């Protein structure tokens, strides 16, 4: 009998508590920055595409919903000529983000992707690429990697010495 009354009292007290329910869609839930939602391809601080088409996201994807084709621009930068994510298959596990060596692919705090037509859940590169550095501002893969691109020659990356003169006999 006592426990019954106690429970009713506790339920009554909830009338005065702060509401946990959001009146979605009028009211949006605040999502943490690391929420694993919609996938985007970000850009590096220079505005160039971060994705170098290494295929690691595709390999890591447990549902195999990413496909792309790597290619090379005349300036030496690698980029995907197409990049497709089939969100009707995606399970938002974030493995692609973990696998990405260039911080290009990032899961954003946005889950509002519902569609009436399943075909519309197939996102191409123009749907995925955003004009932002996403969660990792400041990182530029080509500044770290030893590969030469236009504007950054051999020996100009971080922690690199100028190229060796192979014709020199000096120690």
């Amino acid at each position, binding site marked *: 009998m006592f426990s019954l009354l106690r429970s009713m009292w506790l339920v009554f007290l909830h009338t005065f508590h702060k509401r946990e329910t959001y009146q979605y869609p009028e009211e949006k839930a605040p999502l943490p920055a690391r929420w694993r939602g919609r996938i985007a391809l970000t850009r590096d601080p220079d505005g160039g595409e971060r994705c170098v*088409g*290494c295929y690691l996201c595709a390999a890591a994807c447990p549902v195999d919903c990413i*496909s792309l084709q790597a290619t090379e621009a005349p300036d030496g930068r690698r980029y995907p000529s197409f990049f497709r994510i089939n969100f009707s298959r995606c399970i938002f596990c974030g493995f692609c983000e973990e696998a990405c060596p260039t911080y290009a692919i990032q899961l954003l705090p946005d889950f509002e992707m519902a569609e009436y037509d399943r075909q519309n859940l197939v996102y*191409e590169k123009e749907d995925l690429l955003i004009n932002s550095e996403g969660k990792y501002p400041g990182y530029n893969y080509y500044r770290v*990697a*030893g590969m030469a691109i236009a504007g950054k020659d*051999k*020996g100009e990356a971080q922690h690199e010495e100028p*190229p060796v003169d192979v014709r020199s006999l000096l120690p």
Partner: protein
Amino acid sequence: MTIYIDNKPYEVKPGKNLLEACLELGLNLPYFCWHPALGSVGACRQCAVKVFKDEDDKTGRLVMGCMEPVRDNLRLSIEDPGAKTFREQVIGWLMTNHPHDCAVCDEGGSCHLQDMTVMTGHTYRNYRFSKRTFENQDLGPFISHEMNRCIQCYRCVRFYKDHAGGKDLNVFAAHNHVYFGRCESGTLESEFSGNLAEVCPTGVFTDKTLHSHYTRKWDMTWAPSVCQGCSLGCNTSAGERYGSLRQITNRYNGEVNGYFLCDRGRYGYEFVNSDQRILQAAMRPHSNGTTNKDHILDLVAQKVKNGRTIGIGSPRASLESNYALKLLVGEDNFYLGMSDTDHDHTSIALKILRDGPVRTPSMQEAAQADAVFILGEDLTNTAPMLALAVRQAAQRKPEADALGQIHVAAWQDAAVREAVQDKHGPFYIFHTVPTKLDELAEDIRRGAPEQLARLGFAVAQMLGADIVPVTGLSQEDAALAEKIAAALMAAEHPLIVSGYGSGCDHMMKAAANIAWALQQKGRNPLLSITLPEVNSMGLEIIGGHRLDTALDVLRQGDADTVIVLENDLYRRADPHIIDEIFLHAQDVILIDHLYNRTAEKATVLLPAGTFAEADGTVVNNEGRAQRFYQVFVPKGDIQESWRWCLQIAEKAQIPALQGLRNLDDIDLALTNGMPSLAALQQLAPHAGFRINGQRIPREPHRYSGRTAILANENVSEPKPAEDVDTPLSFTMEGYRGEPPSPLIPFFWSPGWNSVQSVNKYQQEIGGHLHGGDPGIRLLEPHLNGGPHYFHEAPDTFVPIPGHVHIMPLYHIYGSEELSMYTSGIAQQAGEFCCLYLNPEDLAQWNITPGNWVTIDLDHHACRLVATPNHWMPRGLGAVSAGMPHSPVVDLPVCVKLQA
């Protein structure tokens, strides 16, 4: 003998080093500089193991596994903490300057350095200082260069210079600046440069054609394939992604190609992706809506039913396709789709190999020969991988001599090379023009092919062959013949090589005579004969009428329809002859994959699958039947040529082909119809073959993008294609263990993602694959009964006034039809319109070098640029053979010069 590895006893073969022994036992021991085909140099210090004195020794000493021979009761430890730490530290040092670029490196995912780094457990770079960098070089259309990734294992130069005889790749600078490259940017000269991509354990040298449509190894659909570039039939793995062929890699075969491929074979695949491909069945004239495949098949079947149809086969089509066509049109109406010269050469080769008493060696056997005599062949250009084998053979005798003196193991590469220096074994070349192998030869003889063949006959005669004596030899020639005969007699396994390369069949006859005579003398000679195309031998075994008789039949009106199988007839005979075939034939039905000159004139086009889209069997120059498998399901109406024939036969109700549906059916019909091919039934597992109820997957287990590749077309994934012809599946599902050797789509083993994983598939390092190498030899020597020598040597070559005898010159880049669709190969192709003539001839005929000359080819004028070449004897000319626009096709030929 027994060795103890981590206190477990193992049985190993004597004569090996510890690294080989460990790998052979399936144990994982990291290494870089050692390569099974190149031996040990102990440069990278990566394969360190602890060796203990005896059971009580707990301290042990570190040794390099690749430098230490196995001894009975040797005790070693791979897992010893000291050895493990040592290996981890060594790789840490090797990686101090390795750039942070696996993501943009083409080697990633099939990288030996990645595998070994993971294997040793090295994870973080401890070195805090800057990285050394290098400038890269442009190494031509086949190989990319990224020197920063180098770990100084020296494998590239050891392969390129020591193994393949290249001159233009070397190691420069000193200490930690060691640089591997050319002295300046430029195309690599060696025909085997593509192997650098596989030999390099990391991404310094990578495949440039792959880069242009880059895909990771794990993302490709692979199938075991056979190179279509020449008659040697090297084994390859072909990889596809998004409907285009991406890469050809070496598929190890312990008897054929071993670890390497030539550049024509590795890069000559781009015709598969060509925009010249025929994708849909079509007919001329275009009437409304007749591109329907069934409608076209009905019309073709109607033609075939009338019985006035002839079929022209092809040496670049499979046995199955040729045989299906032969049954479709009837045995009497089947013509060989090779030039009459090629047919003559191939039939002589078949006769020599089938009826003669001497065995023709596999390529790996040829590499073991201890004396070499090449008659009229420029092997580097006609059978490149055989040239590589012969290069190794040239080392055998000095190597054996050196080993007798210095008492080290044969795999001690640096020591043995030091002892050998630049000595070569007995090696003789007879060829009209210089060849790349000349540098190895003890004696070289130049001259007209007939002249050289006469000298070959003289050698045979000196060896005791029962032939008509060759007279009129100069004293010098007689002395040379005697010297060669003596050298061949002194050798244990002399190798005689000849073939189609100089366009003179007397060369083959002379080679056969020599080999047979050596056999009679109790030696063990090997006789290798090169042939023009991938399935020349197979087509010759199937047999048919000569191509020129096809024209007679059409002229007389006995036939009005021609079915052409995978063939550009304009490469088989001079244009005016082929034009006449088209003139007399009412309908020409072409089953081919590329829109070539023949397709231009054909009335019906049926799109055939290339080697990557079809299953079939080809027979190489040693009579080894090998199966290639379909890699992917092609677009449009493309299907195997034999399947087109079966579908036509079904509609035309040809009894011989009724009820045949798949590869096994046509192979059964083939073996029933031709008892000499009965062994084909054992060639590879049949379509019903399963392991644990599962097929063999063509795709690696990490294959990505299954649910996204076609999502742009339709978000609902289609059912994967099913393979009715083979036990392979087009998906990643299936048996994950080791497949039987003919069905290995790609080499992979846990922890071994690169091609180095082939170690896990071999019975013995550098030996045969588990269960035996794929392929079945159809020709074995006819040991009973003595040889039937070719008695008559050819007459001496005498120039005919006003005429020039034109011989063919073959080029690795350019002479083969399909590889020319690869832009890198087309770039390097030779001149197609040059007529090489002796300068004195030019002077005599008042021709200015570089001017056009007109020759009278069967009453058809044709123009070529006169180019002086002092290797040409008087009265002899040469033209590059097989070039796409060459006006002279059927070589050799004797033509009249017009001023």
